[in-house]
């Protein structure tokens, strides 16, 4: 029995199998089979990345690997680098795009606005409406719905409204709602930003 084991790791992109150098290929297949069988449903449908870091697989070994993996409903995907490819959305995380969508109307309950850039609304955002964008959100009216600024990960995004009364406010991956005790209505324009790891709302002074 070989002392070595091939390392099978799961991550959000799929399953990655690392095969140590010098390991007997039959042993690899047998270990793989055991591992996959033990949690079949869990792995089902996952993409499998094989990284034989210290050795290259022979074509027939690749084929055998593919067949084994298919028995469990998985498929081999060729990795482009040693790492699984990073999702495209993370590029430009901290940059602000200049693309801005201007909406000259009230956004009603049930309407959802998604935009890659900033969103400006000349009107209200009613409860039940959602604005999701990668940049800033400016509502020149009452914001009463859900606003998600910086949705691709930009924590410097901000949300501004003449009357900031959202059901929920989200910036990047921070979520916040107003406290359960009834607050007095906002007196003027307010700006929400992430500060010290929490979304903070300040009165807006131009």
């Amino acid at each position, binding site marked *: 029995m070989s002392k070595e084991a091939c390392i099978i790791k799961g991550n959000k992109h799929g399953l990655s199998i690392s095969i140590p150098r010098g390991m007997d290929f039959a042993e690899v297949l047998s270990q793989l089979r055991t591992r996959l069988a033990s949690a079949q449903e869990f792995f089902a449908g996952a993409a499998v990345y094989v990284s034989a870091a210290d050795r290259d697989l022979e074509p027939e070994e690749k084929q055998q690997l593919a067949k084994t993996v298919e028995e469990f409903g998985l498929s081999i995907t060729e990795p482009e680098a040693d790492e699984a490819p990073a999702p495209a959305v993370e590029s430009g995380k901290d940059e602000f795009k200049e693309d801005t969508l201007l909406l000259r109307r*009230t956004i*009603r*309950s*049930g*309407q959802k606005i998604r935009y890659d850039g900033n969103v400006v609304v000349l009107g*209200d955002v*009613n*409860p*039940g409406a959602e604005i999701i964008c990668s940049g800033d959100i400016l509502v020149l009216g*009452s914001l*009463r719905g859900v606003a998600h600024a910086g949705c691709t990960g930009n924590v410097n995004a901000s949300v501004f409204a003449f009357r900031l009364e959202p059901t929920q406010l989200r910036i990047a991956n921070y979520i916040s709602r107003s406290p359960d005790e009834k607050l007095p209505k906002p007196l003027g324009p307010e700006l929400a930003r992430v500060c010290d790891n929490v979304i903070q709302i300040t009165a807006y002074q131009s």
Partner: protein
Amino acid sequence: MGKSIVITSGKGGVGKTTTTANIGTGLAQIGRKVCLVDADIGLRNLDVVMGLENRIVYDLIDVVEGHCRVRSALIKDKRFDNLFLLPAAQTREKDAVNPEQMEKLITELKQEFDYVLVDCPAGIEQGFKNAIAGADLAIIVTTPEVSAVRDADRIIGLLEADELFEPQLIVNRIRPDMIRRGDMMTTDDMIDILAIKLLGIVPDDESIIVSTNKGEPAVLDKKSVSGQAFRNIVRRLEGASVPFLALEEENMVKRLMRFIGIGGKS
């Protein structure tokens, strides 16, 4: 060529059918030729509220499927010769008709009547889509409750998407005592969110339950407050400028306090 108006709300139970019956009867009362259409297939109520349920022979689905002519299905009202009802089917479902068929039917009715009022079912699915097909105007009925306003807002959004712009609002079942106590939304709060023109306000009135059970619309009762509210709505639809019923009246003390400057906005 007449006008077709759809009476809708989103939320159920806010008073669409009652409103349709009362506005229709009110318009007939002042001499207009009116046709009421019940678009709530499977859960028909307009015939009951009008007191005409035992006169139904054919219904809307029969017309749309070609079993009879529109004329044969229309039921003349008990009280007015110029008021007719096209009832819904009770034994079918909302997918028995599609928007194109509805639009064709409503257009045909508009040739003969001054007003065609369509009673829309609750919801936003097939029934709603059928009811708004062929409508020129929309009236949104809501009650002064957060959930009803939320649904009304959704409906307004859907109407705008279907190019039915500028719907008008009727606020139903207002309770002035609750508004004074601060337990109920004011009409101003609702217009703030919905941002559409206010057509009328109707107070919560026990006599409505009596009138719907009996099949005698409240608009016919001179002593009924809600009847008066509907009569005002009818006049506004015809173009008259009628002041709204003073339901949310402040009492003298409050008014004095507000004048001096104590206390917040009413």
